[in-house]
């Protein structure tokens, strides 16, 4: 098999697995297990094609369909964001969290939950603002993007973004936001309902997602993926250092902004929809790198596909084997991804040390 065909075949396999896993999502879940034909009829009706199923079964199928679609898109967004940042920072430990995007989204969502719990200003209490789940996603998105932009502004000087300053600013802002979140949780300690809502959002969730959630994360992913052809080769040239890349004709400043913007957008949309899902943006690009090497031309697109398959697979494991435990995707990701990643590192530590 030629080196050029391997990424293509892996990509094809991942894309087919993505579709297969969405199909499996339809027949996994609570006690209702329909046959595949019924499940597909419900899914098609959910997309506005075909006849709806009887009773509550149609509603169940639609919830499962949107859960599957959102899981795939969220996984793809986080993995793409991680791959972009690892390439930009030339550091395998880089992930979306260092830009403060996760923390910013959590802060935004926490403020929205406080408003929903009756702690906000009266004008925010207007039902005209829209249905509450979208208020949380909207606040999370604003919090995430706002934090990312703030960190990038602080870290840039004279139109250039300094990578070490960016990392240090990210650490400082993450610490500040952690303090704010702790203060919010402490302030509503006695309010069981609000406390519980805050807690469950920080675990990350794919429950109860709908078409609006899918549209939000899908558009973020689509816009971010558009930059891949414009930055893939440039990121390969970054591997030798910014000065070498500049000498080879790479517009360093522009590329950095493009990569940071795309990584921030895809991550912000994903976190706004699904809460904090740790580890995925870190581990998936590494797994792909182990399969196809360091070239960003294959790495970025395969990370996108791999992230979708990874999160959907984790969700299927959770729903089929740990259903009653209600382990959330963030928790599952750490429990499965962590040991698996350690195993791979142990097996391949010699080859990875050269990266």
């Amino acid at each position, binding site marked *: 098999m030629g080196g050029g065909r391997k990424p293509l075949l892996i990509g094809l396999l991942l894309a087919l697995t993505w579709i297969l896993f969405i199909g499996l999502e339809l027949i996994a879940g609570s006690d209702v297990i329909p046959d595949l034909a019924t499940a597909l009829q419900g899914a098609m009706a959910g997309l506005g094609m075909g006849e709806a199923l009887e009773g509550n079964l149609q*509603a*169940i199928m639609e919830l499962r369909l949107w859960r599957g679609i959102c899981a795939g898109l969220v996984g793809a967004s986080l993995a793409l964001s991680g791959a972009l940042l690892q390439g930009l920072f030339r550091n395998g430990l880089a992930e979306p969290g260092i830009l403060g995007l996760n923390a910013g989204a959590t802060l935004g969502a926490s403020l929205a939950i406080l*408003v929903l719990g*009756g702690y*906000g200003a009266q004008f925010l*209490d207007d039902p005209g603002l829209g249905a509450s789940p979208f*208020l949380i996603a909207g606040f999370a998105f604003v919090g995430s993007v706002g934090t990312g932009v703030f960190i990038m502004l602080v870290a840039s000087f004279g139109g250039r973004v300094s990578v070490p300053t960016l990392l240090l600013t990210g650490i400082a802002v993450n610490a500040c936001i952690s303090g704010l979140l702790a203060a919010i949780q402490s302030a509503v300690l006695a309010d069981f309902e609000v406390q519980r809502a805050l807690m469950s959002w920080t675990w990350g969730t794919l429950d109860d997602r709908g078409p609006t959630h899918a549209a939000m994360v899908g558009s973020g992913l689509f816009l971010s993926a558009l930059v891949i052809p414009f930055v893939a080769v440039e990121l390969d040239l970054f591997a030798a250092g910014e000065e070498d890349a500049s000498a080879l004709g790479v517009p360093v400043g522009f590329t950095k902004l493009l990569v940071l913007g795309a990584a921030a957008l895809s991550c912000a949309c994903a976190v706004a929809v699904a809460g904090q899902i740790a580890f995925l943006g870190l581990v998936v690009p590494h797994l792909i790198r182990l399969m196809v090497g360091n070239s960003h031309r294959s790495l970025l697109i395969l990370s996108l596909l791999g992230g979708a398959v990874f999160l959907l697979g984790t969700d299927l494991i959770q729903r089929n084997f740990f259903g009653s435990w209600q382990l959330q995707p963030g928790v599952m990701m750490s429990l499965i991804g962590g040991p698996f990643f350690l195993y791979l590192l142990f097996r391949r530590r010699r080859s990875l040390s050269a990266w």
Partner: protein
Amino acid sequence: MMPRRIMSGACLLLLCCTDENPDAARARRFPPVPAKAGFPLRIDLPGAESFALQQAPRRVLIANTYLTDVVTRLASPERVLALPEQALTWSRLALVDEGFRVKASFREIDAEMVLEMDPDLLLCSDTNLALARGRFAGRDIPTLTLPQPRSLEEIRHVIRLLARVLGAEEAGRDLLADFDARRRRLQEQAARREGLSALFYSNLGGGGWGTGSNSLPDELIRLLGMRNPLADAGRRDHVQLTLEQLITYDPDVIIVQSRAGESEFESESVLRREPSLAGLKAIRKQAIVSLHPRLFSTGSQEILLAAEEIAAQVDRILDPKAKGR
């Protein structure tokens, strides 16, 4: 040595996972009620420790909201040194004053504050690890640590225990008599709701929660003659509940928290706005019962207020003519 430790650990884990007899569970979680009333009083606490009082306490420091509910029914305001600030919103003191609201209140309490106030009895919950052992810079302050009750029998036990500790036998008897009479009344009317399923549900837009067995809400549902589909499905305690699961259980009645105008975005509005729930029996029949969150979260005798409110609302839904009753 190690295999034996592992075996003991495994046995302990197995014990924790097995359904325990309610009396045994209560004996494990709560200190016993002393057989004799009066002082000096001594209680053997779990873990070979003991709690002793030479005389009836006059400077009581309460560090927990549900204990505030009980103590403010048993003791006069002058015997209470201070209360948690949360109790002014989340205990019965949100509705009544009785001279307790002017008491000093604190947001959080630590050992230094306890020493400064110098109480002759500290009542706290087992979650307050800083206070629970009752040792403050080498000084012993009589400290009674009580967990949150999970059943009506555990609430009775707490009332009996605190009445004895506070030397308030008569007030304790009155409170218990009232508690038992209200409970009996609810039991007598339970038959009219037989066959109905009911589910506690909470969702502020960030994901739903319900309550399974081994919890006070489950006991309330059963006390009112209904069944809890979450408990029937083997779910215990407070559990996350997706919309899909809610549709699968399809209860006749959904009990939600209502913040009484504090916010428009409540669990009830989530239920009514979510298109996938439109086919639920409870939504179609408008069988959504709203309670203030204070009644949801209490672990005291006040929980019967929640039961009475649920009963009244369910009966109105079942029989609209009963509105005036």
